């Protein structure tokens, strides 16, 4: 459940509710821009590490350290002391003390040329100080100055430069005269892009969210955020050539927060939630624009191939397997040092002898959750990928009864459970060396090529190459990555990979049968990570408890944004008296007020 106050929960239950609000902010910056960014300054003795501005996540609340600037160090205990004189203040940047004669200059060099819609700088948030003026210079890939923007008469701790910098590889920031004079220049945050902020009384038309969790792991959970914005004034260019539309891109972060007038004139805000752009629709003939965001988990689609597996190796915990997958994935991070996942310790107690299949990372994580008898979901605030045991005995957080329902519930009736079959896998090494891949390429220059084996898994892989030289090679259990250069670029290069196939065999064990049921639901679990029967009892028990509840319901109701899938609610309807059920889906529609559909099992 999203953390909201008891006033919020109580106000939501009232027959007549006051309006809801929505604020959404998109961080419009080129994805990947800060990777390969080099930052230097003329202020070589500053009490900070410039890299940390882009590497580490800022702390909340902002810590401040005591310094001897005139009238800054307040002896109220709110300032910390640096333990050593060589300590650095991270993840912020503080200069040495400023003066009128010499500007503080910071060079930002990207790994390639980028087009950015502007620059956002958050200065000193502890005491709200800022420079009198700054200038930003943009240089192209050849080092030529192509743009200068001067910002004078700065009057707040936030500076937004809305001038676009197109095709810049280097940006130089000149900080001209701090206020108060001789204080240190401080930067809390700098974004090469802009924050586009939308509110319900300006550009937001409506919005919807859909969050789900899968209790038996047969599908991936989802989390969508759809935002419709008005475009009567063509603020968003359908040709994507002008304005903000030019810089919007997939994977940019949308942060949204729900507000609710819990008492007349008193608006409370739920915690901000993260989503990442997956679709941008700007029709030329429409007056509204749709931006869709989904979760880090949904965007974790890169196929995992990086397993180095050998038969007979020590079995791995499912936590080790999950971490290996996540560390070699395309998981979205707000800063490079962020670890955007939470793997519960219970994963340390489930083991596997299996190699990791060649599948999308999110599919693999779902299989791990299933094999360990846990659940996989996106944590609702930061969107961290989470695997944890399902808390069976947690209390219900909400009541959805006939006073909150706006439609009669829909029902899906499952067949009676007849049997459960759990598959246990074994992996054996073929003694025979066979050809597992063959490819022919026309290469005009050195190329890195991923070669997926024609078998599921292999080991002891070697390569044979004709008309080519292997510059680099990595052999994994499902694929190989070779960097190859042709000897004669006018002839084809042939690559053959050979190795020992690792064969998978699966045996199904019937762990439950209801002999009274003549024709019913037979559940089969085919999970490549299950290599022993250690977890069979708990897996069977979980499936029994789940599928003994044959009804799944969908309930149209007033819409409570704080309910998250996996929560338990008490609910009743015209068809049933009050009962406790698990929320498997919560859909919210917003048009200034909320309505929704919650699905329970």
């Amino acid at each position, binding site marked *: 459940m999203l953390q909201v106050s008891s006033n919020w929960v109580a106000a939501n239950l009232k*027959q*007549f*509710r*006051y*309006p*809801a609000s929505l604020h959404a902010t998109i961080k419009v910056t080129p994805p990947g821009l800060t990777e390969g960014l080099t930052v230097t300054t003329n202020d070589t003795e500053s009490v900070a590490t410039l890299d940390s501005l882009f590497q580490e996540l800022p702390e909340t609340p902002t810590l401040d350290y005591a310094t001897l600037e005139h009238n800054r160090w307040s002896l109220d205990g709110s300032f910390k002391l640096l333990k050593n004189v060589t300590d650095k203040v991270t993840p912020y940047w503080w200069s040495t003390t400023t003066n009128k004669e010499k500007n503080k200059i910071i060079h930002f060099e990207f790994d390639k040329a980028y087009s950015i819609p502007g620059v956002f700088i958050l200065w000193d948030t502890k005491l709200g100080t800022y420079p009198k003026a700054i200038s930003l210079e943009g240089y192209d890939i050849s080092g030529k100055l192509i743009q200068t923007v001067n910002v004078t008469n700065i009057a707040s701790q936030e500076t937004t430069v809305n001038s676009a910098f197109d095709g810049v590889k280097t940006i130089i920031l000149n900080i001209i005269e701090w206020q108060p004079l001789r204080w240190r220049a401080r930067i809390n945050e700098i974004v090469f892009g802009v924050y586009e902020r939308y509110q*319900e*009384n*300006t550009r937001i038309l409506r919005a919807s969210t859909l969050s789900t969790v899968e209790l038996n792991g047969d599908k991936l959970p989802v989390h969508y955020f759809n935002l419709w914005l008005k475009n009567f004034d063509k603020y968003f260019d359908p040709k994507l050539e002008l304005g903000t539309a030019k810089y919007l891109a997939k994977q940019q972060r949308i942060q949204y927060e729900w507000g609710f007038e819990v008492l007349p004139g008193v608006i409370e805000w739920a915690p901000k939630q993260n989503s990442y752009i997956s679709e941008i629709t700007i029709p030329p003939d429409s007056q509204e624009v749709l931006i869709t965001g989904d979760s880090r988990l949904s965007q974790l689609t890169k196929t995992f191939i990086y397993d180095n597996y050998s038969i007979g190796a020590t079995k791995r915990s499912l936590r080790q397997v999950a971490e290996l997958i996540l560390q070699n994935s395309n998981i979205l991070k707000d800063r490079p040092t962020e670890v955007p996942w939470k793997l519960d310790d219970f994963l340390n107690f489930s083991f596997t002898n299996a190699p990791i299949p060649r599948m999308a990372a999110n599919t693999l994580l779902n299989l791990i959750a299933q094999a360990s008898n846990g659940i996989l979901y996106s944590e609702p605030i930061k969107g961290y990928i989470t695997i944890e045991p399902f808390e069976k005995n947690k209390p219900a957080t909400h009541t959805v*009864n*006939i*006073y*909150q*329902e*706006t*439609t*009669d519930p829909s029902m899906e009736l499952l067949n009676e459970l007849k049997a459960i079959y759990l598959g246990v896998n074994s992996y054996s090494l073929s003694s025979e060396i066979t050809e597992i891949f063959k490819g022919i390429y026309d290469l005009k220059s050195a190329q890195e090529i991923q070669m997926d084996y024609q078998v599921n898994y292999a080991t002891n892989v070697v390569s044979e190459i004709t008309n080519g030289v292997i510059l680099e090679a990595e052999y994994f259990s499902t694929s190989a990555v070779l960097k190859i250069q042709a000897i004669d670029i006018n002839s084809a290069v042939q690559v053959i990979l050979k190795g020992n196939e690792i064969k998978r065999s699966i045996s199904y064990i019937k762990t439950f049968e209801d002999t009274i049921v003549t024709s019913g639901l037979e559940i089969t679990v085919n999970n490549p990570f299950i290599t022993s029967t250690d977890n069979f009892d708990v897996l069977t028990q979980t499936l029994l408890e789940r599928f003994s509840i044959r009804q799944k319901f969908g309930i149209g109701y*007033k819409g409570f944004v704080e309910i998250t899938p996996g929560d338990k609610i008490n609910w009743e*309807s*015209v068809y049933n008296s009050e009962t406790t059920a698990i929320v498997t889906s919560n859909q919210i529609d917003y*048009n*200034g*007020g*909320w*309505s929704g559909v919650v699905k329970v099992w």
Partner: protein
Amino acid sequence: MQYTIPINYEPLKRDSFGFPIRPATMFTMQAESGGPIIAIPNPDTDSADGLIATLVNSARNGAAIVTAQKIGRDQGKTSMSWNFLTKDEWERMVRFWDKNFFFKFNYYDDVSGTKISRLFYVGDRTRKPFNVDLEGIPIAYVDCVANVVDTGA
């Protein structure tokens, strides 16, 4: 009965044709981006209808009881009519609305008890020419009507 003269009474002004110019104390409007403030002539005493609209999402719950959530704030609509306006009075307004479909409308709000400005838009406008000069150009207008509606912003 003693007739009381308003404290800030001024004699009626007239245009070049001698037609009376109405006081303009109730409403003003201004472009969204700022600029000159246009005073709207006070409408007829039997017009200036004000509407306060409360928008809600509503439905009947499982007990057939209405449950609702207010959407946004209450929004206003003002209908104005003038039985007679000088040429300048009417044309100044329609020219403004021609360039400013959305505009800042300043009016007395009975809920807050003060004059406020909100973003409004203008609906259909109707009028009839009072008479025309030798070149067929109206010299004044009658039965003028315009409605302005709160956008909710």
